[in-house]
């Protein structure tokens, strides 16, 4: 047995341990794009929720005391769904592309596990938020979506890059802050879904995509 054989053995052990247990084809670029979509959506939503009043003036939810609120609510839900669909679609397309480059199966054991780990907290949170919107608690949307998204990321991080773990913790902290300051929900939402996605997406892009 030569030294090169041993090196090859060790390389293949390492590679198999990683590839069998982690989905390493998540695209960092899709995180950056999702962050940009979220920023665009947030600016749009801002004009609907707070009107065009001063940015730092006292704020309250316009939708709660304006007669045309169902229409505004539908618009907001529409924007949120638009951002979600655009982000998920971009994520899927870019991840498939990266998986092909890396020769990892897109619909294999690890990707299914990753999806499951993310979906349990996401759907729980999504259902809870819809129920609370229906009962009139609009203020819960920003903190709850950040917290449940953060939990989903932490739950997913054991199956993929470790960086996701810290993004999850940051989102949970932001969600709790948003709960303390309900009037500023959208700002925390912009930081959590917009800025942090762009920051972490760029880090992952430079670390793993290239």
């Amino acid at each position, binding site marked *: 047995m030569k*030294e090169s054989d041993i090196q*090859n053995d060790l390389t293949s*052990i390492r590679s198999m341990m990683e590839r069998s247990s982690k989905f390493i084809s998540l695209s960092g670029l899709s995180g950056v794009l999702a962050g940009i979509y979220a920023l665009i959506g947030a600016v749009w939503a801002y004009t609907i929720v707070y009107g065009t009043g001063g940015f730092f003036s006292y704020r309250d939810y316009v939708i709660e005391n304006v007669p045309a609120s169902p229409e505004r609510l539908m618009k907001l839900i529409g924007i949120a769904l638009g951002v979600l669909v655009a982000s998920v679609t971009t994520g899927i397309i870019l991840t498939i592309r990266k998986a092909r480059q890396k020769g990892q199966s897109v619909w294999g054991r690890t990707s299914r596990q990753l999806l499951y780990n993310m979906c349990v907290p996401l759907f729980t949170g999504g259902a809870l938020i819809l129920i609370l919107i229906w009962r009139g608690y609009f203020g819960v949307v920003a903190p709850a979506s950040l917290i449940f998204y953060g939990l989903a990321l932490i739950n997913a991080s054991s199956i993929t890059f470790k960086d996701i773990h810290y993004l999850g913790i940051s989102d949970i902290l932001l969600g709790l802050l948003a709960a303390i300051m309900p009037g500023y929900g959208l700002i925390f939402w912009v930081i959590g879904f917009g800025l942090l996605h762009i920051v972490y997406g760029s880090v992952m892009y430079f670390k793993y995509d290239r």
Partner: protein
Amino acid sequence: MKLPFEKLDKAFENRLRLQIMSILVVNERYDFNSLKELLDVTDGNLASHLKALEKEQYITVHKAFLGRKPNTNYAASEQGKLAFKQHLDALEQIIKQQK
């Protein structure tokens, strides 16, 4: 001084068997089809090496059915995990001696 080459496990001389064992020590269970896909090998080749590891009692086999399709899962036994660790230790010693 005793040559550490002797401590290398004969069962892991084959690269594919070593790879199978690497997968099974980090995952609780792994099914046949996922193994095949990950290792990019033929059914027959994979089956014969799994059989060899099973014979050494390094892995355990769990047969089940998903609907009508057979779904066979493999897991590393305690004995297998120990053997794998000793094999890695032996590799480490060889590298150290060559330095």
